């Protein structure tokens, strides 16, 4: 893989950021793909994310696995624990009573669903991880950052496109 340089433009106005993204889409810089663009923003901007290539979210698939795995495993474990414990009947109830076991099964259904969701989310969000060296604290305040990775020779072209939409700041890391 060839050497890549990174450039970051900060916008105060989402509409300007959208304009920049639209222009990047149609810029036709050789070797540049929309996949190399990352938006950083203080809040979720679905209208900007739409301008990127579709980036699928797989979390709910893992949630489904969790809710299938949790209750079945839970019920099997509970029932087998009851059956393998020293033979004890309690209060005239059967040793393995299903209606009460459903309560715990339900709780485990939710617990494993939640845990799988959280785990898969952290994997999908690539957290915990390091921030990119070009991270700018103002994207956690009120700016929208557009981060573009490109070949070093294409950077001036991209900077020019980004600069056409009133960014408050453009800075690049061309050393990588």
């Amino acid at each position: 893989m060839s050497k890549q340089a990174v450039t970051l433009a900060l916008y105060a106005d989402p509409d300007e950021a959208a304009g920049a993204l639209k222009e990047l889409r149609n810029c036709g810089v050789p070797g540049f793909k929309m996949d190399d663009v990352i938006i950083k923003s203080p809040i979720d901007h679905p209208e900007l994310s739409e301008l990127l290539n579709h980036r699928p979210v797989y979390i709910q698939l893992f949630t489904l696995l969790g809710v299938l795995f949790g209750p079945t495993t839970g019920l099997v474990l509970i029932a087998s624990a009851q059956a393998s414990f020293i033979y004890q009947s309690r209060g005239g109830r059967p040793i393995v009573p299903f209606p009460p076991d459903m309560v715990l099964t339900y709780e485990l259904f939710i617990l494993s669903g939640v845990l799988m969701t959280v785990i898969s989310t952290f994997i999908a969000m690539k957290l915990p991880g390091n921030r990119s060296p070009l991270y700018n604290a103002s994207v956690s305040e009120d700016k929208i950052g557009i981060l573009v990775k490109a070949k070093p020779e294409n950077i001036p072209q991209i900077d020019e496109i980004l600069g056409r939409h009133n960014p408050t700041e453009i800075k690049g890391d061309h050393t990588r």
Partner: protein
Amino acid sequence: MSHSVHSHPQLDVQIERKFVPKAKDLGPDVSWAQINKDVLRSLEKPRPAFWIIFFSALALFSFGVYCEVYQYQNGMGVADLNNPQVWGLYIATFIFWIGMGHSGTLLSALLHIIHADWRKPIYRYSEAMTTFTLLTAALFVMVHLGRVWQFYYVVAYPNERWVWPNFTSPLVWDATAIGTYLTSSLLFLYMGMIPDLAICRDNARGARRALYKFLSLGWQGTDRQWGNFKVAYMTMACFLMPLAVSVHSIVSTDFAVSQNPGWHVTSFPPYFVLGALYSGCSGIITLFIVLRYVFRFEAYMTQPILNKLIKMTFAIAMVWTYLDLIEYATTWYGSDEVAKADLVYRATGDYALQFWGMIFCAMVMPFTLLIRYVRHNYTVLLIISLILNLGMWLERFQIITPTFAKSHYPWTWTSHWWPSWVQWGMVAGSFGWFTMLFMLYCKIFPSVSMYEVKEMVHEQNLEGKLAQPVSEHAHEAGLPEGGQA
């Protein structure tokens, strides 16, 4: 659409009216940088009241610790519990606290699912309230155990003797449900807090910066992170709704599955869930007023939001009232003579004062919320929200105590049983413990969600933009003031 109606002057006026008089939850000119500044300031310089509250809570908690140590040393006898009155205030207060923990999740998860945006400035501290009330409730499970040092027997851990807990016991369900709820709501709270922790990280110095850096996990707000975050947050909200309902239903089975008169009631699970939401909502109102003052959140915890919260509380209070009355009605018109006698005893016996106190505090007092003056006067509202919660505590007291006092078996019919100072001390200590933890939380973590308030402002501005397409401010509408700075 707005362009087509512009040709028609009358319709135009109607559209203007539709948008303009709508009460905004937040002021129109909150800038994003200001949001960061205001919330981050709450972490550093609260009003002096913060320290007064914190140290009074610490003092109460210390007294509670003293009571527990005393009870641990001498045995449960110091609590003046006896043969029929085996639970006393411990379980009553346990239900009270676990009930308090329900509205945080309701407010956060349910309102998130239905996209009710007014939750955004107040959900964070409500969720924190949930977490800490659950911890407090768990404390009561511990202190009420005769052998608290063996509490881990309740946990299903593998061991060489293949000894397991009794999975049919409501107490094991309780432990599992509370564990699940605590884990899930803690994760929900944390997940929702990550973007804000990143803000803190970007603005803090020293040890705090290290803490926030560790906790924010390197969040940088990329589109991929936001996209996954939104899906995950919604998914978790969908899990937490039924979970919250199941947790208090399970707590109600502690009573509903038993044989005792007054407990053996089918309507207990919904009754408990609604009671939980009720006390939780009034708890949220209390903390709303306290935080608003202590941390100077006047710009975010606004009157329109409080109004909505009060309306919700009133509605829940009415449903709870209905369920409570229907419980009495079914007992009264049923043919279970023992339960009927128990009901009469509750209303007329040794604990009649507590019973009617509950009726007054929890059923009559909510009607004062209908008065405009009460809704707008924060001091009065603070007192009323505390009275509502006192009513809910009395409700738990009069579920437990009269039933034990006059159960099935006449020989154990006790006269006016009253808990000892050790029990009262631990109840007081629990309030101290909760307040202490909650206040510490608010001092260390942002108790108003910064990024979601920004979303709210963003949406309000978008709405304003749509409403006034020809305004000369249209260009700035999408752009928060101070954004250029």
